[in-house]
């Protein structure tokens, strides 16, 4: 790679530039029901639009042989392939593809391209099938090899920017300490991903999004970005909530939500469904208010590991405690 390093870099740069023009959604498939719910959601969001790429990602662990008594697992794997057996994960990705596109349509309208790239330490490397539609939409099935799922997903970001990562997150109510010290895959991705992350939990589509705002400039950016995601749905429904700490804060909170509403109207010509002001602990109030919506949307509090243990952060606490799906915006 050293000799044509510059060419490779240039190629990456071009691809990055080209891709940042598009709306790219990375859906992490692990075979669970949650991950397929997330996929359906992505499909509602973008499958009918020409500028949307949906990438289905399955991460399988690197085959390594220390535990297999010194015989590399790849020997067994190669033997499996010579029998014509599929890698684990392929079937799950195929099932995901079927929920996006019917078999007939796929054959007639889409073109497919398969690529494989080598990965150090694994005989089969990463496998990718790219389906292109004449309208410009693409669906990519990607079978990736990584030492663990979270770093596989995060590495995938490096290969092309994404607007949104969708990942299943089944368990609710882990303690703050546990979530910080032994984060689950979805929590790791939510903490470290450079782009927005949707954590799918009992996702019921069609009930709209609830975006949480405070007065900051960052939260305005979050709302703006969220409005653009909401606009991608056939029937955009977006409400905003601001939580005041006590009764004295209510007028200020009302001013914030009104400002947000006006801003969306003037800048993007987007109407909010409703605006709410709640009083009390932000996390409790947001979790409670969010119950009636499909997704709770929050900005990332941008805290490091240490502050997550000590003080948490509204977004990470909501992520842990919410009954339904949470989207962390960046």
């Amino acid at each position, binding site marked *: 790679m050293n000799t044509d390093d510059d060419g490779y870099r240039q190629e990456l740069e071009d691809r990055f530039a080209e891709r940042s023009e598009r709306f790219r959604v990375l859906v992490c498939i692990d075979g669970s029901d949650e991950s397929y719910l997330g996929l359906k959601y992505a499909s509602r969001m973008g499958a009918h639009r020409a500028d949307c790429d949906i990438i289905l990602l399955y991460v399988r662990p690197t085959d390594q042989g220390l535990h297999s*008594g*010194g015989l590399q697992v790849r*020997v067994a794997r190669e033997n499996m392939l010579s029998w014509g057996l599929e890698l684990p994960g392929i079937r799950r990705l195929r099932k995901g593809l079927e929920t996006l596109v019917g078999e007939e349509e796929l054959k007639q309208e889409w073109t497919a391209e398969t690529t494989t790239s080598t990965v150090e330490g694994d005989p089969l490397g990463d496998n990718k099938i790219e389906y292109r539609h004449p309208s410009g939409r693409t669906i990519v099935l990607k079978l990736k090899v990584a030492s663990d799922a979270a770093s596989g997903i995060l590495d995938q970001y490096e290969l092309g920017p994404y607007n949104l990562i969708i990942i299943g997150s089944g368990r609710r109510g882990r303690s703050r300490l546990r979530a910080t010290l032994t984060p689950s895959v979805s929590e790791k991705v939510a903490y470290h991903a450079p782009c927005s992350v949707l954590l799918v939990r009992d996702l019921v589509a069609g009930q709209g999004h609830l975006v949480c705002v405070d007065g900051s400039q960052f939260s305005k950016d979050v709302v703006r970005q969220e409005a653009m995601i909401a606009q991608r749905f056939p029937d955009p429904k977006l409400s905003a909530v601001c939580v005041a700490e006590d009764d004295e804060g209510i007028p200020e909170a009302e001013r914030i939500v009104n400002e947000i509403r006006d801003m969306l109207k003037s800048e993007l010509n987007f109407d909010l469904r409703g605006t709410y002001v709640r009083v009390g602990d932000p996390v409790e109030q947001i979790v409670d208010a969010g119950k009636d919506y499909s997704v709770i949307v929050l900005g990332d509090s941008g805290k490091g590991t240490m502050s997550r243990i000590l003080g948490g952060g509204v977004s990470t606490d909501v992520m842990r405690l919410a009954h339904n799906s949470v989207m962390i915006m960046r």
Partner: protein
Amino acid sequence: MGLNGFSPKAITQGIDPRAMKTGVRRVVRAGRQLNFYYFWEKRWFFIAVAIGFGMLQLPLPADLSREGMIVLTMSVVATILFVTEPVPLPTVALMIVVGQVILLGLESTQVAKSLMTDSVLFIMGSLMLAVAVVKQKLDKRIAWLIVRITGTKTSYICFGISAVSGLLASFIGEHTVAAMMLPVGITLITLTSDDPKAVRNLAAVLLFSISYGCSVAGIGTPSGGARNAIMIGYWKEFFYDPTDPETRKFLIDYVHWMAYAYPLFLVQLPFVTMILLFTFRPEYRNLSRAIVKLRAEVDMQGGLKPGDWIAILIFFLVLAGWITASADIGMGTVAIFGAIGFLVAGLVKWEDINSGVNWGVVLLYAAAISLGVQMKDTGAAHWVAEHFLDVLKQFGAGEGIGLWAAVSGLTTFVTNTMSNGAAVAVLGPIVLNLATAAQESPIVIGYITAVSSAFAYLTVVGTPACTIVYASGYLKTTDFLKVGWKMCVMSIIVMILGAYFYWPLLGT
């Protein structure tokens, strides 16, 4: 411009996405994540090093030498690292080598020499043989042979698979057979049904038949697994004295080992199938559909080619060599000889062997055995054994069956947390000294340790066969717990009964 001329990422991060691809970005990101996260991920490494440092500062116990304390410390640190794996395991091997030179002040050449023994040569040779055997693609024929004998009933097929896997694994190592038989199991599953959910239990029964069949068989002969070779090496290293003819009994040869251990494997075999069928109750009682298709595949392959016959011949020559010549030229030499045979006959490419063997494992076992020998030489193993025996005596487990059960339980526990070869390498010196201190036969205690190290049914990492079968993607880690504890109980009972009633008949 996409998204109304407005890239959300660029706004929220204030960076032009194009500026994000070069090395700088990686460094920045690494810097952000390095802080606490790096130390947290590697926490066990630092904890282990801190414990090691703390142990060296402790006042020396009266009956332990300074060197003994250092070796003991190194063993404790290595054990923590084996179990928690904060760094790649071969790193631990390298640390042991460096530690012996720097902390113990041994001559570097002397340490290097202590790394290579016949046991290590054997581990290396049998891994090369394993790759060569898997590459011969005899698996379809073996599968066909099994179903020809067993018919199409699921329960018979399961027994057939574990029996044949076991018989093969007892001679050529469980990892070899697991790698060979895994496609057989998966093929039978996928030919039965395409929907993984509809065959979940069937998949569990078939795949566990392979892995547990191999695991219980690994104890059968010295070539069944690295741990057996390690134990044989320890016996010779610790007790054999060329000037004393009495100690010749500690030179355990191939046949002698088989006489002790092979019956234990055969007795366990039917229980494996019973436990599996009882735990997982497969969805299909008959696999005739899958077997018809399997037969068609085997037919396509045609008859045995000359190359296949040569491979089988070399295999049996190696087997014969182990049985007849290993006492004179060493088991390792025979294994290496077999690898040479496959390479000379052109049946396997060196590149395949090179990429199929994890050489780090060879290094790991070499270092672990070298450390084990130091444990004995410095008296550390003796010291630990005496104190451990004092504890056991308080529970009435200082001798006889109580001691056996304690050793077996300890080994089972340790082997479930790390690879079984490493478990024997770490525990061997201690339990063998325990045997002398308790005036029990080191041979019996050694067998109990080596055999118990196969009882790693509970975790994916416990035995090689489990790891390989898990790579199929059909099993969950909880499946191992669900059925593994029953296997553990069964195996321990069989072994204790064997040690009590059967081994005395062999005259120890």
